[in-house]
Every structure is written in structure tokens, then in C-alpha cells.
């Protein structure tokens, strides 16, 4: 289940949806990304997420399909917000449910890594020292890259 929205999401509700009716689930891994209040000495006042709607839907569907192909998953949920967010606000929710905890953990981490490097979202931070676009981190590319290697071997 994939959703891209400006509204906040309710983790409990999404978790209930995943669990509902599926009695084969043994482990559920979740990730919630939230807006931090600061980085280093700066205070972050707000963050605006821009995205490329037509492409976002396609990329998220591809990422979900890839996770389901790699791990025996009973359910996957990705909810990603866009628009203006404030410190402490939720940005993204990823849920992976499986009969085995290892699959749930790996798939959840894979989904977050791929979201960070393949989903067309961009973050504009409004900080105490001005507004600026968040730069892509090499560490995120490395994190996503390890899944490529594992699939290629």
C-alpha cells in the first residue's frame, strides 16, 4: 500500500491495516522518519518537501514490487508526506510484515534506503541562517548501493 500525501499519518491505524486478517504475520518492522529540530548549530524552523507526483507514484510502486520480489512479505506500507512540515512532524512511514522477523527487518531497511535515493522528493530547509536545499548524502548512496551488490552476486 502506497500513499503520497500532505496530511499526517497515524502509525497505529496503518499498523492495524497491515495486521488485519493476515494470520501468517510473525514480525513487523516499522520505520518512522521525523523532522529534526536542528543540525549542528542551526535551528530548523520548517522543512518543505517538493516531489514529482507522476514519477513518485511509479518509483514507489517499483520499490514496493522490488521488496516483495526479494523477501517473503505479507504486507508492505509506504506513506510519504510532502509540503510544509515542522520539527517533530512525521515525514515517512515504512512497514514490512513477514512470517519471519529477518525478512521484515531487511525489507524495511531496503525500502527506506531506496526511498532516500530513488524517490523524487526534495527537501528545502528553513533554518535560523536562511533557507537551503538539503544535499544528497554520499552515505545514503552507499546504503542503497549495498542492496545492488547483494542482488548482483
Amino acid at each position, binding site marked *: 500500500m502506497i500513499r503520497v500525501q500532505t496530511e499526517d499519518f497515524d502509525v497505529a491505524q496503518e499498523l492495524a491495516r497491515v495486521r488485519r486478517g493476515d494470520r501468517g504475520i510473525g514480525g513487523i518492522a516499522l520505520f518512522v522518519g521525523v523532522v529534526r529540530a536542528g543540525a549542528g548549530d542551526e535551528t530548523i524552523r520548517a522543512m518543505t518537501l517538493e516531489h*514529482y507526483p*507522476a*514519477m513518485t507514484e511509479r518509483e514507489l510502486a517499483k520499490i514496493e514490487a522490488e521488496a516483495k520480489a526479494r523477501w517473503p512479505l505479507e504486507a508492505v506500507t509506504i506513506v510519504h508526506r510532502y509540503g510544509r512540515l515542522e520539527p517533530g512532524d512525521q515525514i*515517512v512511514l515504512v512497514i514490512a510484515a513477514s512470517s519471519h522477523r529477518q525478512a521484515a527487518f531487511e525489507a524495511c531497511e531496503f525500502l527506506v534506503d531506496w526511498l532516500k535515493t530513488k524517490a*523524487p*522528493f*526534495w527537501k528545502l530547509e528553513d533554518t535560523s541562517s536562511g533557507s537551503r*536545499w538539503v544535499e*544528497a548524502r554520499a552515505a545514503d548512496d552507499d546504503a542503497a548501493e549495498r542492496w545492488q551488490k547483494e542482488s548482483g552476486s
Partner: protein
Amino acid sequence: MRILYFASIRQKIGLAAEEVSPPPEVTTVGALLEWLKGRDARHAEALGDPRVVKVAVNQDFADPEMKVAEGDEVAFFPPVTGG
């Protein structure tokens, strides 16, 4: 051909989208990028650094060698920072 710009590239060019009709010799993503850079100083600056310009053709990530044609939607944007 519909061109879209996102994030810092959109801000630098001052446009979110434009309709363009490049000459017939512009058949690849790379050639289109060069042609767009020749339009004015803002395009040249915004699209100048190949390391930070990513491209999607019809909503799929694309390489410079990929073909583009009339009717395509081509998007230029910096590396993504979602999640």
C-alpha cells in the same frame, strides 16, 4: 516536448515547466541538456554541473544516451533527498 524542473534547478531557472521544440538533431537526453543550456544564462547555470543534474524521461530515470522525441516529458532535478 514538455520540460519540467524541480527543487534547486527549478528555483535557479525560475520555471517549473516549459514547452520546447528543439531542432531535429536533438535526439538524446545529453543533446537536449546542451541545447537547453544554450537558451540563456539561467539555464546554463542551473543545468551546468553534470554531477548534480539528474534526468527522467517519461517519469523514469534516464542516462545522457537515452533517446528523447516529440511528446516526451523530460524532467531535470538535483539528486533526490526524500525519506
